[in-house]
């Protein structure tokens, strides 16, 4: 029975001491401790959410970069393609113009050649005529060096004339 009978003295001192302990710890220990714990938790929470946001931002940026890169690549391909087309066009045009120019030159050359040929032919003809005349003259001269022959010829000619 002794054990389960609370003694008034101990009840008194426990009440007093527990009250003081509760007040002192509550004011000077629990309040600051709990406040700084919850503050730290909040800061951890905000740091975590910040990290999460940074991660999202990072993902977004990476995505954007990828997109940009893709776009740039497509643009580059486009440019290259266009350049190739332009090059081909230029080459084709050059080829064409070269061809027409060449044919023009050839045509002109042909005309020139024809002209020259005609001139040469005419020249040759003149020369041939001159030469022929000279030759004929020389032949005639040879023929008529001899007086008899001249006389014979004249006689011959005159004969023809008599007949008429």
């Amino acid at each position: 029975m002794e054990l389960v009978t609370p003694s008034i003295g101990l009840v008194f001192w426990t009440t007093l001491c527990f009250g003081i302990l509760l007040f002192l710890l509550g004011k000077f220990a629990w309040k600051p401790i709990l406040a700084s714990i919850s503050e730290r938790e909040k800061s951890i929470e905000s740091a975590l959410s910040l990290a999460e946001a940074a991660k999202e931002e990072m993902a977004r940026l990476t995505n954007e970069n990828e997109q940009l890169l893709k776009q740039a690549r497509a643009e580059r391909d486009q440019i290259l393609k266009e350049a190739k087309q332009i090059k081909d066009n230029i080459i084709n045009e050059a080829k064409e113009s070269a061809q027409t120019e060449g044919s023009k030159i050839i045509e002109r050359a042909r005309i020139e050649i024809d002209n020259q040929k005609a001139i040469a032919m005419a020249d040759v003809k003149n020369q041939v005529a001159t030469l022929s005349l000279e030759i004929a003259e020389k032949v005639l001269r040879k023929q008529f060096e001899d007086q008899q022959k001249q006389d014979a010829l004249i006689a011959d000619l005159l004969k023809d004339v008599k007949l008429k």
Partner: protein
Amino acid sequence: MTSGTILNSKLFRIFFICAFFLTAGLFPKVTFAAENGPDTSKTKFDAKAMILEHISDSHSWPVAFPFVKEKFLPLPVILYTEKGLEVFSSDKIQEEGSVYAGKLHSYKLEANHVKVVDASGKVDEEASKKVWDISITRNVISLFLSIVILLIVFFKVSSSYRTREGKAPKGLQSFLEPLILFVRDDIAIPNMGHKYGRFMPLLLTIFFFILINNLMGMIPFFPGGYNLTGNIAVTATLSAVILLVVNLNGNKHYWKHIFVPNPWWLFFIMIPVEVVGIISKPVALTIRLFANITAGHILILSLISLIFILNTIWVSPVSVVFVVFMDAIELLVAFLQAYLFTLLSALFIGMAIEEHH
């Protein structure tokens, strides 16, 4: 240093610490046993008296040192009588049968209680009943001691929260923070919801107060070795605090639940049941803590007593093994009972402040 020597020195240290605690644990009991039965061949060792003396309060503090006869630290006796306060040292009445003539009455110690003695030297029961004994007993000293420890520890922790603001906890702070968080996250919040903040100081104080006293009670020598949380006056006071807090904070749903039963015509059964419930909850708290801690002390002391009952040193290994085992269990119980008391307090408060939607 090779690993072998490290291991050896570690083993040695562990052995030394175990040996120290075990032997130190035995000293008060050994010396007390020796005092109780100075001549074991003639007088029988009275285990019951020894155990009861150890788990109950006293007006002096037995302090044992190795190889020295047990000493008693005298403690102040404070008596509140209808004529005024009476203060004197307990060594005036410590000796068996000695009577101290105070200013107002003469006093004598009988079965650890201060009694008023009349002129003829007989105990005056009528006058004794009117005297309120508020002495600084062994348990009151240990109460002071535990409070000083708690204040020092938590002021230190609190200051380290201030100086290490925003940093990770360190040292004592990192040891106690999980316990504080445990009380908050596993006891207060699940039982009291978002209004837990107001009751946190109370719950934390109760938790650490019970825990430190449970643990100090396990230290077998001075300044531990007392049985504060195994004293019904202390547990009853703590429960009374909970009773007050619960009923002062009870909202209208709480009182409606008690006084307006559903269906209403059951009021003649339900109201008495609920009113008994108000009282029985703290009574259960009182008994649970008291019985658990006292039972642990009784078990350990009984196992030690086995050596003296059987009066042979050869039984001591068995006793020591069992006592170490019991100490381990008591360590668990120390935490468990602090947890349980706090948990149930939080539960009762939570039930009283719960909002019904």
